[in-house]
C-alpha cells in the first residue's frame, strides 16, 4: 500500500471503479456527497438565473403602467422559482447532504454511514424531486411564492403547483432519510473513545440539524400532501369557501419552515466552528457552549414559528407569545458568535480562502441575526412585514451565512475531496468579490425596506422613489454573480491544474485529515488513531508546502506520512 507517490496516483475512492453506474448506483458516502455537491451547484446556477431575472426586471426605468400582465406573471414566476429552488434544492441539501455525507463518516473514523443503501435512496429521491421541480417550469406559471399559501395555490393559480408540491414532498423525504441516517450514524458508529463531548463541533451541528429534519420535515410533507388533495379534490380543509381554515395551513407550513431555517444555518455554523479552530491554530473557545447551543437552537426553533404570521390572521395573543419566544433564539446564536471571536483572539490566524469565508460570515450573520430581532418585535414587524427589509434580512442569514458557510466548507474540504489545492490568490479574490457584491445587493434593500418599499412588486414607477435602491441592488448582484462564478472557476481549474494536496493541508485535527487526500475507498487504510481532543492543535506541525501538516508523533505505518517519506 505504501509508496512514495501522492494518494492521487494510488487507488482512491475517485478512481477505484469507473463508469456511470459506478457513480449512479454507488453506496459510498463520499461519492454520494460529491454527486449532491454537483447537483446542488447545478440547481444553484438555475436558481441564480432566476435571481438575475428578478434583478433585471426591477432595474431600469420600467413604469408600473407600462408593464403587461404577461411580464408581471413572469416576474411572479421568477421570484417563486428562485425562492423554491434555492430553498428546497440548494440550501437545505447543501451542507448536510453534500458536505455532511462526505465528511461525517470520516470524522467518526468509520467506513460509511449507518445505512448506505438508504443514503443512495435519499439521493435518488432528491433527483426525482429536482426533476419534478424543473418540470414545473414547463408545466405552467408557478406564481404562489415558495410558501404555497392557500386559497391562492389551491383555488386560483394553475396546475404547476401540483408538480412543485409533489417535488417538494419527495425532497422532504430525501431530507428526512439523510437526517435519520446521520442520527443513527452519530449515535451508533462513534469510535469507543469518542464521547459526545469529544466529537468535532461539525458533528454536533449536523446532529442538531438532523433532529430538526426528522421532527419538522414530516409535517411539511403532510401539509404539502394536503395542498395536493385540496388542489385536485377540493377536500376543503384549507379553503374558506368550503368551510376550511387557510390560517391552519400557515401554522402547518411554518411549523416546518421555521425550523427549516435552522436546517439551513446550523450546518453552516458547524463548518464555521471547524474553520475558526483550524485557522486560528487554537483550541475552540467554549467547546461545550457551542455544542449545546446547537441543541438549544434546535429546540427553540420549534416554538417560534408564529412570528411568520404576525399580520396574516393569527390571533393577537399568539402573536405576543411567539414574539416573546422568538427573542430566545438570539441567545444561543450570539453564544456561538462570541465563541468564534474568542477563538480567534490571540490565535495565529491564517487568512486562507476558507477562513475568509468564515470571517465574512461573522459580519453577514451579525447583520442578518440582529435585524431578525427587529422583525421578531411585534410592533416593528407590522411596519417591516412584506417589505424589502424582510428580503434583506433572510438573504443575510440564508446566503450570508448558509451559502457562505457552504462555500467555506467546500474550499476547506476540497483538497480532501479531490486531492488538489485551489489557487490561493484567485479564490480569495472570488471570496472578496462575493462579499462586496453581496453587501452591495442587500444593504440597499434594508434601507429601502425601512422606507416602506414593498416586496414582490414587478415594478414601482419613478414616483415611488425606490429606483436608486433597485439600481444599486442590481449592480451588486452582478458583482456577486461574477464572484461566485470566479469561485466555481477556481475550483474547476484546480481539478486539472491544482497542486497535489497533502493529507492535511490546513492543520485540522479531526479524523478526516488523518487519511490521505483523496481517501481510499473505505476511508482509512489503517485504523484511525485513538481519538483525543478534536481541537488539540499541538498534535500536528507544519512541514512545508508539499507535506502540509504532519503528526508530531507519526505512527510507523501512517499512510499520510509514507505519502512523502518512502519507507
Amino acid at each position, binding site marked *: *500500500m505504501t509508496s512514495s507517490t501522492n494518494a492521487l496516483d494510488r487507488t482512491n475512492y475517485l478512481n477505484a471503479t469507473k463508469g456511470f453506474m459506478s457513480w449512479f448506483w454507488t453506496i459510498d458516502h463520499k461519492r454520494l456527497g460529491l454527486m449532491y455537491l454537483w447537483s446542488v451547484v447545478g440547481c444553484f446556477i438555475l436558481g441564480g438565473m432566476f435571481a438575475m431575472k428578478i434583478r433585471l426586471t426591477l432595474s431600469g426605468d420600467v413604469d408600473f403602467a407600462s408593464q403587461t400582465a404577461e411580464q408581471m406573471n413572469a416576474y411572479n414566476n421568477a421570484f417563486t422559482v428562485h425562492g423554491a429552488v434555492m430553498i428546497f434544492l440548494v440550501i437545505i441539501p447543501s451542507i448536510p447532504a453534500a458536505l455532511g455525507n462526505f465528511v461525517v463518516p470520516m470524522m467518526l473514523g*468509520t*467506513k*460509511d*454511514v*449507518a*445505512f*448506505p443503501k*438508504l443514503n443512495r435512496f435519499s439521493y435518488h429521491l432528491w433527483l426525482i424531486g429536482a426533476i419534478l421541480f424543473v418540470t414545473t417550469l414547463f408545466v405552467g406559471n408557478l406564481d404562489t411564492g415558495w410558501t404555497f399559501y392557500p386559497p391562492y395555490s389551491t383555488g386560483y393559480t394553475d396546475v404547476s403547483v401540483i408538480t412543485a408540491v409533489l417535488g417538494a414532498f419527495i425532497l422532504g423525504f430525501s431530507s*428526512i432519510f439523510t437526517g*435519520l*441516517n446521520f*442520527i*443513527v450514524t452519530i*449515535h*451508533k*458508529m462513534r469510535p469507543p473513545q469518542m464521547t459526545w463531548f469529544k466529537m468535532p463541533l461539525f458533528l454536533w451541528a449536523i446532529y442538531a440539524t438532523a433532529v430538526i429534519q*426528522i*421532527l*419538522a*420535515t*414530516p*409535517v411539511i*410533507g*403532510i*401539509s404539502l*400532501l*394536503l395542498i395536493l*388533495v*385540496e388542489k385536485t*379534490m*377540493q*377536500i*376543503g*380543509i384549507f*379553503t374558506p369557501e*368550503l*368551510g*376550511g*381554515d387557510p390560517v*391552519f395551513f400557515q401554522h*402547518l407550513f411554518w411549523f416546518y419552515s421555521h425550523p427549516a431555517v435552522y436546517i439551513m444555518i446550523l450546518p453552516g455554523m458547524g463548518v464555521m466552528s471547524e474553520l475558526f479552530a483550524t485557522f486560528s491554530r487554537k483550541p475552540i473557545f467554549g467547546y461545550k457552549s457551542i455544542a449545546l447551543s446547537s441543541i438549544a437552537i434546535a429546540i427553540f426553533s420549534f416554538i417560534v414559528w408564529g412570528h411568520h404570521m404576525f399580520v396574516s390572521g393569527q390571533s393577537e395573543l399568539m402573536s405576543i407569545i411567539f414574539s416573546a419566544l422568538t427573542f430566545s433564539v438570539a441567545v444561543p446564536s450570539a453564544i456561538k458568535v462570541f465563541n468564534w471571536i474568542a477563538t480567534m483572539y490571540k490565535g495565529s490566524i491564517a487568512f486562507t480562502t476558507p477562513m475568509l469565508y468564515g470571517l465574512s460570515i461573522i459580519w453577514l450573520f451579525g447583520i442578518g441575526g440582529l435585524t431578525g430581532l427587529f422583525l421578531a418585535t411585534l410592533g416593528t414587524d407590522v411596519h417591516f412585514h412584506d417589505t424589502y427589509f424582510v428580503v434583506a434580512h433572510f438573504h443575510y442569514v440564508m446566503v450570508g451565512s448558509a451559502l457562505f458557510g457552504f462555500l467555506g466548507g467546500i474550499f476547506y474540504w476540497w483538497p480532501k475531496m479531490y486531492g488538489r489545492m485551489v489557487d490561493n490568490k484567485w479564490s480569495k479574490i472570488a471570496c472578496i468579490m462575493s462579499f462586496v457584491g453581496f453587501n452591495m445587493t442587500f444593504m440597499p434593500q434594508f434601507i429601502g425596506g425601512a422606507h416602506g418599499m414593498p416586496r414582490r412588486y414587478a415594478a414601482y414607477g419613478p414616483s415611488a422613489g425606490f429606483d436608486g435602491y433597485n439600481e444599486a441592488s442590481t449592480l451588486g448582484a452582478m458583482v456577486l454573480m461574477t464572484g461566485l462564478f470566479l469561485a466555481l472557476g477556481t475550483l474547476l481549474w484546480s481539478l486539472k491544474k491544482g497542486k497535489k494536496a497533502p493529507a492535511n493541508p490546513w492543520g485540522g485535527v479531526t479524523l478526516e485529515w488523518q487519511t490521505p487526500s483523496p481517501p*481510499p*475507498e*473505505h476511508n*482509512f*487504510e*489503517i*485504523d484511525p488513531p485513538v481519538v483525543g481532543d478534536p481541537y488539540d492543535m499541538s498534535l500536528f506541525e507544519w512541514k512545508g508546502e508539499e507535506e502540509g501538516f504532519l503528526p508530531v508523533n507519526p505512527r510507523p505505518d501512517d499512510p499520510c506520512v509514507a505519502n512523502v517519506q518512502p519507507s
Partner: protein
Amino acid sequence: MSTTTTVAHEGGHGHSHDHPKHLAHHFETLDQQFDAGKLGIWTFLLTEVLFFSALFVAYTVYRSNYPEVWQFASQYLNTQLGATNTLVLLLSSFTFAWGVRNAMLGQIGLLKMNLAITLLCAGGFMGIKYMEYSHKFHEGTLWSGNEDTIFRLHAEDVPEHIKEHSHAWDNRDGEFSAAVRDLDPEFRQKLGIFFGVYFCLTGLHGIHVLIGMLLLLWLLLRSMRGDFGPDNFNAIDFGALYWHLVDLIWIFLFPLLYLIS
C-alpha cells in the same frame, strides 16, 4: 478494519467471528448493526407519528371549535365495521409479533404461516375499508368540495342522482337523526370538513396499510427463500415495528372517528 473487507463472506457459517454472514461491511459487530437498525426504525416511526400529526391536529382543532358538528357527523360512520376492522388489525399485529418470535427461534414454518395470516388480515382490513368508502360515495357523505357531496352550503346544488338515492340526504328510512337538507347551511358545510378530515386520515392510514402489505409480501417471499433465522431476523423485526405503528394509529382513529356520542 482492513481495506479488503467487503461484502464477500468467506466461510460465513452464521457465527463466524471474523465476519459473520449477515454483517454489513461498515459495522464492527452484529450487535452494533442490530442496535443501529433498531434506532433507525424507531426514528423512522417518530417521523411517521409527526407525519400523521398534522391530520390529528386538524381533527382536534375542528372538533374543539365545532363539537356539535363532529358529534352529528359521527353517526354516518358504521361502528360495527370500524370495530371489526379494529379487531382484524389487532389480530394481524398479534400474528406479526408471533412471527418475530418465530424468526428469532428459527421456526420458519410458523413464521411463514404468521406472515401469511398477517397479510390476509391486512387484505381483509382494506376490503372492509372499501365497503365503507363505497357506501359513503353512494350516499354522498363526502367532503365539501366533492361534486357528489350532500354537505353543501347551498342545498339546491346537490346533484339529482344523489338526492334520489341517498338515505342520508332525506332521511328516507329514519336511519339518521335528521335529514341533511333541513340543517343550517353552515352546519351542513362543516359536516363536509369532518368528512374531509375523515377521508384524509383513513386514506393516509390506508396507504400505510397498502405499503405494509407490500412489505409483508416481500418478507413472506424472503422467508420462503429461507433468508431468515436466529442470526438474521432484523427485517422481520423492523417490519413488525412498522406494522404495529399502523395498528397504533388505527387504535386512536377508531374511537376518535367512530365513537363520538
